[in-house]
């Protein structure tokens, strides 16, 4: 097992961990915008995994898929952001928006 193999294995493990963390935020996310950011990032991690698979396996079969995803990934975020309105505002923040340095912790 050479150095390159170790690096490849570490790449796969780190990508899987990143996808898990992003998935956690996707489930938790308090607002629709947080979920949209997380799902955008999840798609990016998938694209990165596809590219890493191509580079490690020495083929270029997934390249059209990567090209299409890079071009169309933006549509989901734009479509969701278009229909997010003020009515989705969280109730505790619409009543009295917090101002000033108080509550900087957390």
């Amino acid at each position, binding site marked *: 097992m050479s150095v390159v193999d170790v690096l490849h294995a570490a790449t796969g493990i780190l990508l899987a961990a990143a996808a898990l*963390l992003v998935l*956690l935020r996707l489930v938790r996310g308090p*607002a629709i*915008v947080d979920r949209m950011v997380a799902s955008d990032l999840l798609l990016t991690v998938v694209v990165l995994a596809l*590219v890493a698979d191509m580079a490690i396996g020495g083929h270029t079969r997934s390249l059209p898929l990567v090209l299409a995803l890079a071009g169309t990934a933006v549509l989901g975020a734009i479509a969701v952001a278009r229909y997010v309105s*003020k009515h989705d505002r969280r109730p505790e923040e619409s009543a009295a928006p917090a101002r000033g340095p108080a509550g900087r912790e957390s």
Partner: protein
Amino acid sequence: MPVDWSELLAAILLLLGAVLALSAGIGVLRFPDALSRMHAATKPQNLGLIAMLAALVLASSSWITLLAVLPVIALQLITTPMAAHMLGRAGYRVGSVRQDLLIRDELEDDIRRAQRTGESPGRRASGRDR
């Protein structure tokens, strides 16, 4: 043991992309509001993807791969700011941005000024267009 330097460099670039993806995952999970989560999420979207595609070009070592990779990078660089702009505006509108974390909010000044000077038609439009 002979070391293939281009293969080693490709593996290091792949690892760089994966580290950026992991840092973005940690940031998205732990940062407090939507804007800082977007800040964390942008790193693998641009730099991580470019590093991994460079590794792919190094690993496949053909010019045709480079020709297919360049439009991917161009499309990603063009479309990521569009998504960030729309999401940031929507997040500001629905209150996913924590005001107490901002040092200076110039958009709020502009909205106040527009609401002071504008009459009822301006106020009606400010709900959608701010």
